[in-house]
C-alpha cells in the first residue's frame, strides 16, 4: 500500500457555480484533512482528489446509453473512478430523488465498478423536507452495487448555507459543518485501508473455474 490515496468526487450539479459542487468541495477537503490527521501522525496519508462534473459529460453519458460505449472523455473519467480508493457522490434532489443525469451516469458504469468501493453520499435541495431521499433513494442504489456506504450521509438545504453550525440548532445532530466532519471521518477511515488504487486490473480476467470447453468437452 502506498502513502497516497485517490479520491474521486462525482458532482451532478447543473448550474455553474452550483451549491452541489460547493458541498462536494467541502466534503473532499474534509476527507483529505482527516486522512492526513494529526491524532496519529504515523498513519497520516496524503490524497489526490479528482472531480468529475457530470454536466461536462452530459452529452457523452446520453450517447453511451444509446450506443453502448463511452466516448474518450467519459471513458477516462470512469476508469479513474473505478481505480479510486473512495468516491464522494453528490447530487441535487429533484422531485424526491437523485437527478436523472446522476442516475444515467450510474447506469453506464459496469455493474461491478463500485463493488467494495468506499463511498460517501451527499445531496443538496431547496428544503430540508427532502433530506431522507439520501436514505430511501441514494443508499439503496449504492447498496445494490455492493459499495461500502459510510453511515453518515450529508444533506445541505439552502438554509444550511446560512446556518451557524450551532449544534443546538439541530435536534438531529449538528449543523452542516459537523455533519460534513463526521461523514468525512467515516469515509477517511475506509479510504485509509483501501488498496484499490494500487491494484493491477486485468480486464480479461476469466471467471474462476472457466474452461473453454466447459465441463462436458472431455468425454
Amino acid at each position: 500500500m502506498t502513502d497516497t490515496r485517490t479520491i474521486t468526487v462525482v458532482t451532478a450539479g447543473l448550474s455553474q457555480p452550483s451549491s452541489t459542487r460547493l458541498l462536494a468541495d467541502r466534503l473532499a477537503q474534509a476527507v483529505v484533512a482527516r486522512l492526513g490527521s494529526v491524532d496519529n501522525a504515523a498513519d497520516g496519508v496524503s490524497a489526490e482528489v479528482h472531480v468529475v462534473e457530470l454536466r461536462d459529460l452530459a452529452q457523452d453519458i446520453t450517447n453511451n446509453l444509446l450506443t453502448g460505449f463511452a466516448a474518450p472523455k467519459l471513458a477516462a473519467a470512469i476508469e479513474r473512478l473505478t481505480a479510486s480508493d473512495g468516491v464522494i457522490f453528490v447530487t441535487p434532489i429533484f422531485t424526491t430523488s437523485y437527478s436523472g443525469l446522476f442516475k444515467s451516469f450510474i447506469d453506464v458504469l459496469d455493474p461491478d465498478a463500485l463493488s467494495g468501493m468506499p463511498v460517501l453520499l451527499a445531496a443538496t435541495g431547496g428544503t430540508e423536507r427532502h433530506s431522507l431521499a439520501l436514505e430511501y433513494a441514494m443508499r439503496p442504489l449504492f447498496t445494490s452495487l455492493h459499495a461500502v456506504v459510510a453511515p453518515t450521509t450529508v444533506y445541505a438545504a439552502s438554509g444550511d448555507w446560512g446556518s451557524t453550525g450551532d449544534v443546538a440548532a439541530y435536534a438531529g445532530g449538528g449543523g452542516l459543518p459537523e455533519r460534513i466532519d463526521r461523514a468525512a471521518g467515516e469515509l477517511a477511515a475506509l479510504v485509509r485501508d483501501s488498496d484499490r488504487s494500487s491494484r493491477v486490473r486485468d480486464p480479461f480476467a476469466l471467471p474462476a473455474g472457466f474452461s473453454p470447453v466447459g465441463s462436458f468437452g472431455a468425454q
Partner: protein
Amino acid sequence: MSQMQFGIFTVSDITEDPTTGRTLSEAEKIQDTLTIAQHAEEVGLDVFALGEHHNPPFWSSSPTTTLGYLAAKTTTLQLTTSTTLITTNDPVKIAEDFAMLQHLAGGRVDLMLGRGNTGPVYPWFGQDIREGIPLAIEHYALLHRLWREDVVDWQGQFRTPLQGFTSTPRPLDGVAPFVWHGSIRSPEIAEQAAYYGDGFFANNIFWPAEHYQRLIGYYRQRFEHYGHGTANQAIVGLGGQVFMRPNSQDAVDEFRPYFDNAPVYGHGPSLEDFTAQTPLTVGSPQQVIDRYAGMRDLFGDYQRQLFLMDHAGLPLKTVLEQLDILGCEVVPVLRKELAVNRPQETPDAPTHESLVAAAREADAAALAESGSESELAEVK
C-alpha cells in the same frame, strides 16, 4: 482465393427510409438482399454474411435456407453468417444445416457464432440469457465433435443426451466448415476461439478501436498459448462501415439522415463524433482506402474484412452503387496495399480448399510417422 477476404454483412433489418418515409415489405426486402448478395460477387467481393434474428423488424430467421439459394446462384462467393446463434439453436441442427449447405455450395461455407443480444429470444427458445456464456461453451463443444466424430455419445447440461448419434450429411470431404467466434466484449469467447484455433471476428463497428486492440491482442496471445501458431498467425476478422461518393461532402450530406435515424446509434452521437470514434467512414473512396489500409496497424495483419452496407433504410439502388464503388475502386487497392509487407507467416483467409489441404497434409504426416514406427519395429 486471395490472402485477405473482403465482403459484406447484413443484419437483415427492415427500416424505414428516413428520406422518403417508405418501409419495404418483407417480400421486397428479402428479394433486395438476394440481389445485393449476388451483386457482391459480380463486383469481385469474396464474402456475403447474413445475420440471424427471431423478431421484427428483421427477416432473416433461417440463414441456411437463404444461403442455400445463393449457393445455387453464385460461383465464387463465400457464404457465411453474422451471426449464427450458438446459444439458442440446437447444436445438432447447426451441425446438420451447415454440413448440408457445405455440400450444396461446394465448400464455399463457413459460419460465425454469436450469442445474440435480443433478450426475449432466449426464453422463446427455452433458454436463459444469464446462461449465455455456458450455453455458447457447451453447445460449441458438442458442435465441434458432431462434425469430427462419426458417432457421438454425449451428455450435457442444456440439451437432451445423445447415444450413438451420427450427424448427417457428414461434412464435405470430411472437413468441418471453418468457424469464426464473434464477440464485442467477452474475453471468454476470445479464449474459446483461441483454444480451438478457430477464427475470432470482432464486430468493431460501434465501439472505439482501443477496446478491440486489447480484445484481439488477448485472442492472439491465447491462440499462441494453446499451440496453434504464433500470435501473428491467429485468424482475425473485422467489421467495417462505409458510405462513399466521389465528392466526400456529397457522401456526408446523403448519408447523414440515415445515420441520424439509424436504429443502433441514431439520435445519439453526431456523425462527426461517431466517425472519429469508430471505423465508420463517410467520404470519398480514397478516404475509405486510407482508413482501412491502416486497420492492420491497429489490429495486426488479418484475414477477413466485412463491411455493413445494407442497413438503416438505404434504398436498393444506393446499396448497389455502394457495392460498385467498394468492389471496383476500394477493395482492389486495399488488396494491393495490404499485401505489401504482409509477413510471410501470416496465414491466408481459411477456405474449404485450404482446410482440405491441411487435413490431407496432417493425414500424410500421421501415416509417415506410423510407417516409420513399423519400420523401426521390423528392424528390432
